[in-house]
């Protein structure tokens, strides 16, 4: 079992940050979603053994949350959101220091630092001062320091923050690979739903200190009969105007001729083809579509507005 929490609550004075949190997660890639102030940071602190819960019990990787703070952090590679760099150090020194802080012997830590940096494509930059690293390189460096002791679990806080699209894609591919090929359990906390969509196979949605839903993304997203994906070839302006007049909502336009639409109850798919013919465009693709993660998030939050603490 990756994470097992029973009725975990945490309060700060009169403020309830977490309320009766119950979690049962098997090893895998899990996304942690929630608006600001939802209790994500508090939950991560508890999972890292930095903060003790006010009540409730729990285990992470068979370590008891109440007593195994240091042992817990040794089993987890944590990538913080902020820079958290030591100025004046070189990349290899920094990652090796992380290894030593995890308890590795100096020589092993140094050797492992070089391996991990090379794996993360920072081999050429490992002797550069940290101040000279770009934002994307810093993110990879932070991942390297979390990975240096080869932990079974990676706890990543906004791992793609500040990265360019190519760097972000690369980072997400890497996380998927670490999870699938190297069996790393990943808990990914991010505001970017796309990151979770790409990397995670399960999600936890946290709101006002409570877990609103948890489980595999595909199971949580509702099957919808009013959503379609359209691929249009030609000038779509007229067709889109017509669709709007027919009460079809354009949910997403990716700018490359692909659209996600929501149709009214009495709509038939034949209508798409008829309208396409009228407006002289080719409908190259038409696919029924289910709720995506963003819709799931908004639906779950919307169904639970302002849950006041008991």
């Amino acid at each position, binding site marked *: 079992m990756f994470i097992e929490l029973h009725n975990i609550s945490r309060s700060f004075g009169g403020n309830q940050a977490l309320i009766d949190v119950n979690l049962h997660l098997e090893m895998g890639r899990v996304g942690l979603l929630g608006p600001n102030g939802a209790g994500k940071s508090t939950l991560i602190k508890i999972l890292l053994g930095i903060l003790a819960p006010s009540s409730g019990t729990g285990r992470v990787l068979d370590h008891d949350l109440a007593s195994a703070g240091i042992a817990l952090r040794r089993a987890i590679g944590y990538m913080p959101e902020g820079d958290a760099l*030591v100025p004046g150090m070189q990349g290899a020194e920094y990652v090796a220091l992380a290894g*030593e*802080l995890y308890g590795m012997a100096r020589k092993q830590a140094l050797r492992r630092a070089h391996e991990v940096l090379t*794996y993360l494509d920072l081999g*050429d930059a490992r002797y550069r001062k940290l101040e000279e690293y770009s934002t994307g390189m810093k993110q*990879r460096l932070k991942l390297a320091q979390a990975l240096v002791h080869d932990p079974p679990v990676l706890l990543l806080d906004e791992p793609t923050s500040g990265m360019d699209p190519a760097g972000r894609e*690369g980072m997400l591919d890497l996380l998927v*690979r670490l999870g699938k090929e190297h069996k790393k359990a990943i808990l990914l906390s991010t505001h970017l739903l796309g990151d979770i969509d790409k990397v995670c196979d399960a999600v936890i949605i946290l709101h006002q200190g409570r877990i609103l839903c948890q489980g595999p993304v595909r199971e949580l997203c509702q099957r919808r009969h009013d959503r379609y994906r359209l691929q249009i070839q030609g000038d779509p302006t007229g067709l889109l105007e017509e669709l709007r007049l027919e009460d079809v909502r354009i949910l997403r336009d990716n700018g490359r001729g692909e659209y996600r639409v929501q149709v009214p109850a009495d709509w038939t798919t034949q209508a798409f083809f008829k309208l396409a013919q009228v407006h002289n465009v080719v409908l190259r693709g038409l696919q029924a579509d289910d709720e995506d993660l963003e819709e799931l998030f908004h639906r779950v939050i919307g169904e639970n507005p302002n849950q006041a603490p008991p």
Partner: protein
Amino acid sequence: MAGLDESFMPTLLHYRSWQGAFHSSWWTVWPIARVALGTLLRRRLFWTLYAFGLLLFFMFFFGAYLLAWAESQLSVTQQQFGKMADPGRMIRGIRGALRILNGSQDTFQYFFAYQGGIVIVTLSLAGSVLIGNDFTFKSLVFYLAKPIGRWHYILGKCIAVAIVVQMMTTLPALVLYGQHAFDDWDYFWRVDYFSASDTGKGPAGIVLLLAILGYGTLLSVFLSILLVAAASWMRRTMPLIMVWMSMFFFLRILANILVDGLKYDGRWRLIDLWNNLTLLGQGCLGYPWEDINPKPHPEFWEAGLVLLGVTAVCLIYLNFRTRSVEIVR
């Protein structure tokens, strides 16, 4: 492979798993201290100040040879001229001036006092590099997110500062001690070396060696905890210099004004932290309480109590300060 730095292609090497034993968290104290020291030792300013300290050390080191030469010349002139003439007057003057370099408690008391001034200046400049930057650049998150406690971190930083203090005080003092011991092995073996030969006062031998180590330990323990607390409070160099100098120079001047100028009770010298340190240091070196200057001054236990109190306040502050750092935002 153009644009490799920014495009992300993690395919150069297959990920390799690692299996090995982990050391206990106490082993992490040394890497923390080593990295802090490494950051400091890369600064030219530190080596400049260290060079000043070395100049002082060399003055004591070679001054001892000058004293030995003056002693030998004095006996030669006395044999040659007897009491009728006094050509050795100048040499006697040199001898008198250099007498504190004879390896007795005076030698080490003066050495620690002079060297202490340079240590204080060095620490005021080093504090932000050793500790303050961890707060300014949020490196503390990097440390505390690892399997270590906050006391491991604080201990690591204190050790780094203590090593700097020891490098500038105890280490050269031990070299001076060794110089005298190699010159005359009785100096090392006989505790009553000075009283027996009437060339100085105070203990010699192993007692003096332990006294030097005690004085050095006192300085390094107190100054390291105080600096770590002050630097985690002030963080930046300039504010830290102002606070540090106020503690060691302004309070000293104030204590002198109160006690010497306004004739307040000698206990007012307790606000002078450096005076408390030297008072206890001289106690370590075997000075009787009544022989210690400046007079009047507080008792040894009073000075010790003040230093203990300041240390306790610093540790309590450090506990709160490191606890308030948000590791996860």
